[in-house]
């Protein structure tokens, strides 16, 4: 067994540097790597290029890095729900690259799986296609998209073992499962770190080979962004 567990969030982030490209799992506030984000927000590092579906809220998730002006370039799909981000975007304090959500997902998956580039129909005929190769297959038009290249992937899973095997929960699987292994170094925080042998090999969502470091987070707020109930 290859032991991937590290002591805490600090050791998990060793090697991070100014200007690096970070992939961050999560959709909205669901499945975000809470402890890793908080640690980076407290650090002196800045000028990150971040790849993430969304940008958190004003006071949580990626919003913590945005408030501290640590993000220079944001690659995302939907960047609403965060006023400070909007302010920085309008003032051109932050570069924003908007990407169709499925293309963003597939570019992460491609990076993980060693596919340098692929064709997708999403964005053909729109400004997303500008500067990209267009090609027809079976008389439908597609554009060429390349895999991302990132330095760190910051991942949140539900359970994990010391070998780095992961299980996600509910829709928190979202971008976590595909970004895991898509960067030079993949760091995973879990709600529960279990002993090797406790997870059924048939139920592991992400094998430990895609994980470089794993630790159990100190605490989880698991915030709900939009509480909607059957009887309001």
């Amino acid at each position, binding site marked *: 067994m290859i032991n991937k567990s590290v002591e805490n969030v600090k050791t998990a982030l060793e090697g991070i540097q100014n200007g690096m490209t970070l992939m961050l799992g999560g*959709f*909205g*506030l*669901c*499945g975000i790597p809470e402890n890793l984000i908080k640690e980076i927000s407290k650090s002196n590092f800045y000028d990150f290029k971040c790849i993430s*579906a969304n940008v958190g809220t004003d006071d949580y998730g990626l919003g913590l890095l945005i408030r501290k002006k640590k993000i220079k370039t944001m690659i*995302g*799909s*939907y*960047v*609403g*729900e965060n006023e400070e981000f*909007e302010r920085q*975007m*309008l003032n051109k304090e932050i570069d924003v690259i*908007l990407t*169709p*959500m*499925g*293309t*963003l*997902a*597939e570019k*992460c*998956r491609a990076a993980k799986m060693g596919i340098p580039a692929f064709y*997708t*129909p*999403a*964005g*053909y*005929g*729109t*400004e*997303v296609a500008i500067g990209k190769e267009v090609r027809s297959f079976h008389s439908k038009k597609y554009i060429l998209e390349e895999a991302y290249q990132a330095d760190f992937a910051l991942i949140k899973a*539900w359970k994990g073992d010391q070998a780095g095997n992961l299980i*996600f*929960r*509910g*829709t*928190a*699987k*979202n*971008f*976590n*499962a*595909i970004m895991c292994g898509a960067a030079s170094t993949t760091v995973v925080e879990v709600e529960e770190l279990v002993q090797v042998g406790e997870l059924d090999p048939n139920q592991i969502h992400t094998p430990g080979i895609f994980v470089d470091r794993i630790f159990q987070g100190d605490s989880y707020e*698991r*915030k*709900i*962004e*939009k*509480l*909607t*109930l*059957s*009887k309001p």
Partner: protein
Amino acid sequence: MALNKNQIAKRIAQELQNGFYVNLGIGIPTLVANFVPVGIQLEFQSENGILGVGPFPDAGEEDPDIINASKETITTLGSSSFFDAATSFGMIRGKHIDLTVLGAMQVDQQGNIANWKIPGKLVKGMGGAMDLVASAKQIIVAMMHTDRQGISKLKAKCSLPLTGVGCVNRIVTDLAVVDITPEGFYLKERAPGVQIDQIIHATEGKLIVPEDVPQMQLD
């Protein structure tokens, strides 16, 4: 009389068929789930990673790990499954989703759609819209026929940045059901009590008006 949002959703719900996998966008499309005809078996997909979207939870049953693409808390059904975003958009791109319903700022008579960006205004991103319009088997747009200034949203040519090209099959507005054909917009149904002249007036693109335009049946 022009339809309200719930009536638009109700009309769209008539398009639902047995065995459909359906993706609903935010706004009016979300309301379609409230009007699934009796006897129709279908599943709703949400592109953040769930198939078999259940109703909102009872108070105390909400789970931060179970949300839809609008980031609202939801519940699961017996048939539900969770998956990652690459698989989710594989379902969409691979044409496994039968029907996508979404809102729009403009649709033109070539079936082009614009619903993500207004130049000069704050842009929040396309989310999954570009993937959905590029790949769904069938796309229905739910929107008002005109904007608040009374300007037609059914254009000869979209003036706003596009979300997708030649992809919309049908538009359901407060005034009419309009199909996209190789010849242009085709007026299929009118809202109860709405005059054809009013629809023609509210449509900027070329509108083909057949001799008989039935009223929508909403009850």
